[in-house]
């Protein structure tokens, strides 16, 4: 994390914009710098509607064309930072294709066109006392603002960050700064396999029981978190992703198979009925 990034605020939500709660806004890019070998942090000044974003919601970003690429669709990006005090939103992303290659060309002062906030974010049950976050890779970006939400609600947060190597552990400082207890597991240290993570989670739960679990970014971690939430009989949510057409619930391209209460598999739109789903209904990441 760069030292110049302002700390996220826990200021109360501004009043939602009246007629059009979702804005198609032009945000001014404040910074767009690498945070490690693979990920970049994009910060932009945003309007009141965008600043109503909650943890787990996302924006549809217009990715600028480059000499090589002309991304046609917008790209969905979950909000990583909601800084209401400084009027900024932030996105943590990995350059993987033509959309994110375009995003990486934005420099301070440029315009970032962002539609949002979109989708359903995380919902903490009333009275939640100890939140478990389990994430790998860029899934951490999606879960980071949940720490802010949980702390504001008076809950403690323990975050398990899984990555290939310590340099790839995202958000460590950001999460810690917001008051989460952060535990890193990495492939290089040899403690990120499912058996060890499961043992770790069981030990933590025995020390101080979790009453809410959230996960994002890894199918194996999803399955583990789902199984443990069921065993411990605690509420859980998973933030999912999909390649989207519109991101606004219109095209039905981003559907995900989920298990309905009846037991049958139905499709739900990641953009509209998600991206945050109940952990019982999701099948795989």
């Amino acid at each position, binding site marked *: 994390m760069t030292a110049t990034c302002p700390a996220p605020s826990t200021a109360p939500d501004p009043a939602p914009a009246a007629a059009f709660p979702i804005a198609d806004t032009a945000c001014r890019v404040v910074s767009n710098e690498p945070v490690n070998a693979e990920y970049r942090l994009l910060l932009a000044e945003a309007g009141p509607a965008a600043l109503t974003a909650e943890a787990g919601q996302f924006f549809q970003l217009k990715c600028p064309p480059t000499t090589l690429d002309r991304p046609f669709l917008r790209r969905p990006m979950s909000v990583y930072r909601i800084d209401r005090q400084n009027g900024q939103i932030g996105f943590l992303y990995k350059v993987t294709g033509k959309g994110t290659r375009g995003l990486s060309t934005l420099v301070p002062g440029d315009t970032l066109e962002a539609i949002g906030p979109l989708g359903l974010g995380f919902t903490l049950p009333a009275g939640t006392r100890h939140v478990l976050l389990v994430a790998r890779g860029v899934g951490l970006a999606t879960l980071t603002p949940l720490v802010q939400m949980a702390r504001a609600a008076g809950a403690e947060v323990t975050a398990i960050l899984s990555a290939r190597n310590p340099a790839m552990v995202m958000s460590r400082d950001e999460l810690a700064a917001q008051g989460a207890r952060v535990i890193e597991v990495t492939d290089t240290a040899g403690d990120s396999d499912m058996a060890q993570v499961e043992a770790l989670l069981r030990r933590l739960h025995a020390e101080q029981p979790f009453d809410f679990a959230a996960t994002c970014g890894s199918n194996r971690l999803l399955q583990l978190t789902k199984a443990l939430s069921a065993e411990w009989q605690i509420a859980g949510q998973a933030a999912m992703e999909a390649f989207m*057409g519109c991101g606004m619930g219109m095209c039905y391209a981003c559907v995900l198979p989920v298990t309905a209460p009846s037991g049958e598999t*139905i499709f739900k739109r990641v953009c509209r009925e998600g991206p945050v789903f109940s952990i019982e209904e999701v099948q795989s990441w």
Partner: protein
Amino acid sequence: MVDLSVQIGSVTLRNPVMPASGTIAEGFAEIVDLGRLGAIVLKTITPDIRQGTQPPRVAEFTDATLFSIGIPSKGPDYLLESTLPVYAGFGVPVVASVSADSVEDFGTLAAYISAPGVAAIEANVSCPNLRAHGQAFGMDPEATAEVIRAMKARTDTPIWAKLTPNVGDIAQIARAAEAAGADALVVSNALLGMAVDAENMRPRLGNVIGGLTGNAVKPVILRMVHQVAQAVSIPIIGCGGIANGEDAVEYLLAGATAVQFGTVNFIEPAAMEDAIAWIEAYCRRHGVTEVRALTGAMSPRHDQKSPLQSAVL
């Protein structure tokens, strides 16, 4: 003051701009003012409840997308009870869109949803006819005519036939739809295409084949509108790669009375509102007082000028 209103049969639109079926939904009203549009066209419904095709459902190209959604449908009761009330309050004609597996079901569904508040019904004839080995109704002039006749026999609500571009002679299909009583033609649905992922050696869409849409298809569909305009006298609604006011005017000049914006709604929610303003400014700039005068006003390059162009230039 430019008169932007156009007439699609008995339906008056305050301007020629409307969304293509399936490209807006309830979420759109949270972002833009639907009350400014010429009409609101709803997503296609089927008589039965459908989940749609297996994902992935979209692949992206330069200026185009390939979608295969498979018409997920909550059925006609949901349309009447839940969808229509959402769009009733905008003071804009609401156009339903229907599809079915048989001619009879097209007729039954048209009758069932002919409720107050449904200004017209679009017949999406691009879906497979289960009694013709899955060939789309719209690929055959007689099957297209049968669908339109079945709907006209069961309702007084205007019927707009939305043609498929996946045919050899679009004018022939257009004439068949007109003869069967269609009140207007929507030209057209999506071009069939497919995409393969070379690295994992699989199709990029769960359904393998999908519909190509977006600005890249505009020249193809514009050509079809031009051909259909020579063949029929009922109004034509152009639909294919329209992303802005200039695209819309091109379609009007080629013979369309109104236009539908599709894929662009997914990317630029303000596109339709911006286009309405652009069209008005265009008319003013060209001394056109009524937008309907633009329909078919393209002048031949090697012949004498059209009356309109002679008048304004």
